């Protein structure tokens, strides 16, 4: 499928909210002039992205999801420390497939001053009625008192951005009150699946009771989250888990029983989008597995998160256990 094309846009600096709403209505009318175009949506997607890079990355990722999650996109760029102002850009996009063209709108708002602390009062004008509202905090986690949380059906965050135990505890507290979906958790799915797959043979499962040591490498957020997951799911003492810094995520489990050793490992192949699993159990052939990583893991995790906008108790347990882990 092709990338969405900007059909038309409107920009305004120092505008009122009603100007933006009016401009959006004009663009909507215009889309109805395209007789072969359809308008449809399954949710409103809001991204809170204060910085330029964050906003650029977020808009690109959200636009690319239009085929599977047709939505109105609202990008919020709050700057409470600047003078009060509202700059806006509304854009009508068209996404073409072989048979269909779908239009969707994107609204970008740069909000300066105190209004940046009350984003809920701005976005309600743009949320689509009767549909879920997913709010994605790009590279941050929201304060518990953030009023924008009141409009969110689900909150998307990335625990990679909040790796230290204190931040993880804040995230956990938030997750206990709201539906929180962690993009990092989605991105780690191939590792989790591959490791879980190594214990599908019933004979391998007994080794989970005899884990001697678990070694997890990766960046701080992912390695801590995986460590929490393994602690929570296998009841292994955190003392038996070591975490090391590394560019790519890898997991190695050593289990010992009756003087025999079994190893289970999952690692990414350097330079390739492949995760390799290997289980070596005494008296059995080495079992290897290969999983392909998505070409664009970020967008894939976002799409996955938007498909499952619901609490994940396993992630919450992993997060809770991760707060007790030390490098």
């Amino acid at each position, binding site marked *: 499928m092709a990338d969405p094309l900007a059909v038309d846009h409107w920009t305004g600096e120092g505008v009122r909210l009603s100007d933006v709403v009016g401009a959006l209505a004009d663009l909507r009318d215009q889309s109805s002039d395209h007789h072969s175009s359809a308008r449809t949506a399954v949710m409103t997607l809001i991204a809170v992205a204060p910085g330029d890079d964050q906003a650029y990355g977020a808009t690109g990722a959200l636009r690319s999801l239009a085929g599977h999650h047709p939505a109105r996109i609202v990008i919020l760029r709050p700057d409470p420390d600047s003078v009060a102002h509202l700059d806006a850009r509304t854009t009508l996009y068209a996404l073409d497939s072989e048979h269909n063209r779908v239009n969707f709108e994107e609204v970008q708002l740069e909000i300066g001053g105190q209004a940046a602390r009350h984003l809920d009062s701005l976005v309600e004008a743009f949320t689509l009625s009767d549909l879920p509202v997913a709010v994605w905090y790009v590279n941050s986690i929201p304060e518990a008192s953030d009023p924008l949380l009141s409009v969110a059906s689900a909150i998307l965050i990335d625990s990679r951005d909040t790796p230290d135990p204190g931040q993880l505890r804040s995230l956990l507290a938030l997750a206990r009150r709201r539906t929180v979906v962690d993009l990092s958790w989605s991105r780690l799915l191939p590792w989790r699946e591959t490791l879980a797959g190594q214990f599908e043979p019933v004979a391998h499962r007994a080794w989970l009771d005899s884990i001697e040591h678990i070694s997890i490498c990766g960046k701080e957020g992912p390695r801590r989250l995986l460590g929490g997951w393994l602690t929570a799911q296998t009841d292994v003492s955190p003392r038996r888990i070591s975490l090391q810094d590394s560019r790519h995520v890898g997991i190695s489990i050593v289990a010992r029983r009756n003087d025999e050793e079994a190893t289970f490992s999952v690692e990414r192949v350097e330079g390739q989008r492949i995760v390799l699993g290997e289980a070596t159990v005494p008296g059995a052939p080495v079992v290897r597995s290969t999983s*392909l990583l998505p070409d664009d893991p970020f967008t894939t995790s976002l799409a996955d998160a938007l498909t499952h906008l619901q609490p994940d108790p396993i992630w919450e347990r992993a997060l809770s256990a991760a707060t007790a882990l030390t490098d």
Partner: protein
Amino acid sequence: MSEIPPPNPLAEGIDATRRVPAGVLIVVGASGDLTARKLLPAIEQLSRRRLLAHSFAIVGVARTELSDDGFRQLMTDAVPDGDAAWTALVKQSRYVTGDYSDPSTFTNLAKVITEVEGQIGATGNRTFYLATIPAVFEEVADGLGAAGLNRPPTADTSVRLVIEKPFGRDLHSARLLDTALHRTFDESQVYRIDHYLGKETVQNVLALRFANAIFEPLWNRSYIDHVQITVAESLGVEKRGGFYETAGALRDIVQNHVMQVLSLTLMEPPGSIDAQGIRDEKVKALRSVVIPTPEAVRADVVRAQYDSGWSEGKAVPAYREEPDVSPNSQTETYVAMKLMCDNWRWAGVPIYIRTGKRLPKRLTEVALQFHSVPHLAFGKAESRDLRPNALVLRIQPDEGVALRFGAKVPGQAFNVRDVLMDMSYGSAFMEDPPEAYERLLLDAMVGDPTLFIRSDEVDQAWQIVDPILEAWESRAVPLAGYAAGTWGPRQADQLIERDGRQWRTP
């Protein structure tokens, strides 16, 4: 009593309900066209979507002499752009050469399966896919049974047998086939594929009916005047003349595809959208369809064959001039019929069905035509363009739902005319749905039989179709002709027009 294995704690929370468990797929007829064209690409897609267990392998079986490496090459040729996971899967695949009538073929197969399972760490989930001609289904099932491959080796594993339509040539042969399969496999192990049910839009009939409260109250005789089901092909028989001569439109389309769509349209809401709930209701719906008597076949069924004509801007030959078709062929390429359904919901609502080759376009749709308004308050002239409401479920192509209703024409006068509110699934969700084979293979391997046809469904469908076949064999119903590129013979129009109705022009 066997011990229940401990759960895998690391799999908790990972959605494995739609993921193939550790096991082996055994493709019987692995050197054939269906395997290369449909099955292997579907498996590669499942692998690409990470829906296969890590401990998963394919074992091919066929008469064609091939080595393991030869089969691996065949797999690579079938999916030349497969990714690294596919390459790994190809590497651990095996092949067994043998005749299906030779018991040693299956003892060899059992040995190879055990070896493969040892290598990949699988413990006995086995899916046998019979990608063979139907004539050898029985032989293969018996061979698998004799080698002990029809039963799972452990209590926590499963063995399944997947077969493709046609399931018999008539009621008698279908029952014989079932008896033969049930000698070695329980009904719960048999997965009968009609790839039509793997189509996303056929499944959408269920979603439309049972996920929405607005349609179901209208879905009955109080509001619906009649139902029209159209399965139209613009192509002729192409290179399938030899096959088609033994089948015809009734066996090829009506007995299976049409009956599936019909049962989904007529069925009562199931208690739950699961295999038993849906299949029980489908069978109940088919049981309510009135079995045609010989008189009803003569009056309510039209059979026809295409003559030469023009199709999509090209002059095309008559059916009898197609390759591998007898010049005196009596095989029907078109069927139109009226069925009735005797139950509380549908009594008195005629169901008109038409299917054929060389019709003006390729499409499948179900149209529910509502009753006219009890009193039309508008003047005749102002409402001359107004017809009764219709709800159309388009199954292919351009899958979607359309509702026809009356609206005022802008202007000073109060003219009303039909407008179509047209929803296309493709414009709501632009991503391509999985191919039918991909979906059905996955379902078979995870043990979800919802979209497969149960023995009693096959039997009931044949009970409806069999009297028609018998009447035709006695030459009680003449074979009409229609020009290629038209909507069928005049007799089909008369069939519906005598009830004061008309075929839709889709």
